[in-house]
């Protein structure tokens, strides 16, 4: 567990987070490795984990009939992967594929939600860290939708 808490402390997601909370959420965490082209999760699957990427690259992809999967974002070192575990029905809405060897810390979603529900201070600290990347990705989606390079 000591190694895992140390890995968490080194990740930008936990910047400014009390050791007490890091130790608490570490109880829901595990160290994971994905090989190139491993799927971390697939569209429609149950969102049972979220990941903090330590090293590597993950492509977020959507499939359309008759064409290859389309990557709309790459997630890299220091990023958070996946937010569908936060809200019901806890279902992934896209695929996540490791582009290269990728090391991450995986959190068991039910465990973390339970701890956030039990202590709203923990939940608030978590939300403060989830919302900025969500807003950033919403903005990216707006730019992609506007097709800004077409003009």
């Amino acid at each position, binding site marked *: 567990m000591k190694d895992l808490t140390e890995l968490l402390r080194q990740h930008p997601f936990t910047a400014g987070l009390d050791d007490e909370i890091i130790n608490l959420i570490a109880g829901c965490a595990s160290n994971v490795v994905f090989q190139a082209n491993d799927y971390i999760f697939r569209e429609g699957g149950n969102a049972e984990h979220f990941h903090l990427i330590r090293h590597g690259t993950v*492509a*977020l992809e959507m499939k359309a009939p008759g064409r*290859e*999967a*389309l*990557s*709309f*974002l*790459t997630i*890299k070192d*220091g990023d958070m992967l996946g937010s569908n575990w936060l809200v019901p029905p806890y279902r992934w809405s896209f695929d996540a594929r490791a*582009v290269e060897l990728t090391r991450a810390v995986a959190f068991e979603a039910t465990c973390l939600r339970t701890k956030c529900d039990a202590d709203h201070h923990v939940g608030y600290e978590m939300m403060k860290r989830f919302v900025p990347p969500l807003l*950033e990705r919403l*903005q*990216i989606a707006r*730019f*992609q939708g*506007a*097709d*800004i*390079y*077409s*003009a």
Partner: protein
Amino acid sequence: MNTPLDPMMPRFLPLQRRIRETADVLSLVAEPLEGEEMPTFLPGQFNMLYAFGVGEVPISISGDPQERGHLVHTIRDVGAVSHALLQLKRNEPLGIRGPFGKPWPLDQARGADILLIAGGIGLAPLRPVIYHLLAQRESYGRIALLYGARNPADLLYHKELERWRRVPDFQVRVTVDHAGREWLGDVGVVTRLLPKIRLDPADTVVMLCGPEIMIRFSTLALLDMGMSTKQLYVSMERNMKCAIGSCGHCQFGPHFICKDGPVFRYDRVEALLKQDEI
């Protein structure tokens, strides 16, 4: 600079080569007639290109300013004039007036780190800057290029991008809005590349060229890094006619893009970029 005495009089250069860059973008390479002098230019300047019987459009010069033997313009097929220009065949005359406009601040930037941010066809006006920086590498600090495009097929200058990636001490990062499996690079907006480059924010000059939306959100990210609007330079685009500040077609608030720009320090246009219908 070598502007003709009458700036409204085009000179005619025969087209020597057409280089296919993407499905709708070509680079046209023109050379002077024997015995004629090739117009010189500074990185960031543009020419008015004339398609006979159709019209004129402003196009940034995208070639190497040190190469005196030819003149390169990279053109996207977006309207009647650009379409007509891209139909020109070898040895057919290309009408050119210019060069016009204020260049990128390469002299003022000597000694500083340089960050170039390009979006889509916005890499074309910055390519002369890259040639200049690489030719005078010792005069500048760290240099970096962040380039965003819609998809891998829309990236300009593929071979040069690969070559620039191999240049030591030149940080080149490319990202696209979406891509298939063959693309192993970044997917996302250019600002996501900012944390991955090494620069001194307090001593960096940034040159941006691309869609205005990209310029606006990039400048916000740069200001968040601690830079000031006085460190940022943007190349602006508006419809132009005369290119010498007489007709007013390109008026942008108190500025004429053709003669006061197209390159502006960001603090001089920041407020205008936030106003509607300018």
